[in-house]
């Protein structure tokens, strides 16, 4: 018989608000894994924990701001990025991360996403992409594959989804990568890399949403989508950006990797000599 291993401490104790547990995420949800990676990157970063700030918008991923035991701002629908921009510009010593979902970041916050990338503002955006609006019960969103079923696309999604990597690359982000919740090590590494990378960094992490997305699209268990990642993910960073679209329902590769890593100068407010 397997003996349970009892430990006094969890490695993330200091970084998670234990008094906010249990979290609201469903069984099989991938967001917690992504948060775990972010927390590990904070520990590994060597940057004073007091200087880390997390900002999110609305939605299941947005709840991360409420669970992390660092300075955290849970803002309104889509406005996490501009709020984060204000924090960073007012206090450049802060290490500012936006943690939110695909719906929040790419639909209602889509304009802020592309403009923050265009300005190449020195923040990190972690996007947990679960292909739907999960918290509100599984409506279609900007990443829902064409034809996929949701509570607002009961005849199949009539729209084409964003290829977020291509979008962010075109908008001007300095760093763009994509992984899934099975790529824990790579996500930690890339978040850590992004902390220290000047300019705008965008890390997309595909995450199962069995209740909101999976159940309507033949991925009823979280593990189904996880297994699918393992079968289909292809690490080919040289793949043309416009070939990086995702459709979980098709038998097509899911390209993962670091797709953009460039050195364009990060946004700086103009500073003149201060007259005395």
């Amino acid at each position, binding site marked *: 018989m397997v003996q349970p291993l009892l430990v006094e401490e969890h490695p993330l104790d200091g970084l998670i*608000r234990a*008094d*906010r547990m249990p979290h609201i995420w469903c069984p099989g949800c991938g967001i917690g894994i992504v948060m775990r990676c972010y927390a590990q990157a904070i520990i590994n970063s060597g940057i004073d924990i*007091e*200087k880390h*700030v997390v*900002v999110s918008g609305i939605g299941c991923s947005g709840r991360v*701001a*409420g669970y992390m*035991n*660092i*300075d*955290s*701002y*849970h*803002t*309104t629908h*889509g*406005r996490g*990025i*501009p*709020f*984060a*921009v*204000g*924090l*960073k*510009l*007012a*206090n450049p*010593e*802060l290490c500012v991360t936006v943690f939110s979902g695909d719906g929040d970041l790419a639909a209602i916050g889509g*304009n*802020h996403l592309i*403009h923050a990338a265009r300005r190449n503002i020195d923040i990190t955006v972690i996007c947990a992409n679960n292909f739907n609006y999960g918290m509100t019960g599984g409506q279609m969103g900007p990443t829902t594959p064409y034809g996929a079923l949701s509570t607002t696309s009961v005849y199949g999604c009539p729209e084409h989804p964003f290829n977020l990597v291509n979008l962010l690359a075109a908008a001007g982000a300095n760093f763009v990568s994509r992984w899934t919740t099975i790529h824990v090590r790579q996500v930690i590494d890339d978040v850590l890399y992004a902390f220290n990378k000047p300019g705008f960094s965008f890390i997309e992490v595909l995450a199962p949403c069995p209740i909101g997305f999976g159940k309507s699209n033949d991925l009823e268990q979280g593990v189904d989508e996880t297994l699918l990642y393992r079968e289909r993910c292809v690490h080919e960073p040289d793949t043309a950006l416009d070939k990086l679209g995702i459709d979980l329902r098709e038998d097509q590769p899911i390209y993962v990797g670091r797709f953009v890593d460039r050195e364009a100068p990060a946004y700086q*407010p*103009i*500073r*003149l000599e*201060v*007259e*005395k």
Partner: protein
Amino acid sequence: MTSSHILTGRYFMNGDHACAEGAIAAGCRFFGGYPITPSTEIAEHLSSRMPQIGGVYIQMEDEMGSMATVLGASAAGARAMTATSGPGFSLMMENIGLAAMMEIPCLVVNVQRGSPSTGLPTLPGQADVMQARWGSHGDYGVVAYAPWSPQEFFDLTVHSFNVADRYRIPVLLLADEVVGHMVERVEIPEADKIPHWGRKRPIGSKKEFKPFEAIDDDLVPPLAHAGEGYRLHFTGLTHDERGYPDMSADTHQVLVSRLVEKINRNPKDLIRTETFHLEGARIVVIAFGSTARSARRAVRVARERGLPVGFLRLISIWPFPEQLIRELAQDVDAFVMAEMNLGQMIREVERHVEQPVLGVNHAGGAMLAPEPILEAIEKVANNGSTSSR
């Protein structure tokens, strides 16, 4: 604050520029906005001035982003502002509500133009006053000021930052196109003559600190900033004293009541009015912003003609000075409310008095002239009500 950044002296300056210099004098070091007529000169001036003084000017992609980035900057400790006009003000309502809920201080300037919708971009209006009060969804206290001159635009910009910081609220400065664009003498005081009320800051243990616990009678919790080691949590959701979401009716009642009550409880700091010719007045004219200039002339002429008329100028339009209105109502027979809209603030006056209130209104596009206000005064004076008591 470095006093050398304050351009102490006398200037011939338009209202928008006076607002921008008022912001700098108040220690504002962050402007996030989207240019829109007739507030654009504020953005232009600060885009030139902020780089000189180590501040930030960032031109955002829209007004929703502008409002959000201002809140972020303020949460990191900066005095922060934006400036806009009607169409942008509508878009900012979302995060004005977030500012009220998170209790993050900031200044939102609305140089009003003819509205609704795109309306009259280059011409004045005063029809956003009820939107200023009720524009974001839900209940929350509001403080809004309406300057009548470039000098007062400067002074109220400073005051608005002080009120915002002191009460942890977004303060709305409702200028209008006339005041924004007119050029007059503006005197910028010495640095030590510029009032400065700081933010109430936490004391004691960082670990025990609750960012939404209002210990003091004023119901304003101390404000801690990002990066100071408090491990803060701020949310737009209903939250308890720790800032943690709490989806209960009881917590909601306590929180929202406090957001309203902290404004109601402190009228002395917040309400500002000015009165002229009240001695012996049987009629009181009420106006605010640029319209108050026409009203003042109308009242002066009416007095010269021997009519018993006085003048109340609202400098703060929210909170509304209802106590003062009720006091005036003890002694007068009628009120005249002049405003560049089709009858918004008149409802507030009517709520508090039993006497007739005659509205002088214009939809906007041109400053309300003295003549129709004078006609209204004469009409009220001649209908006999003034001699009946």
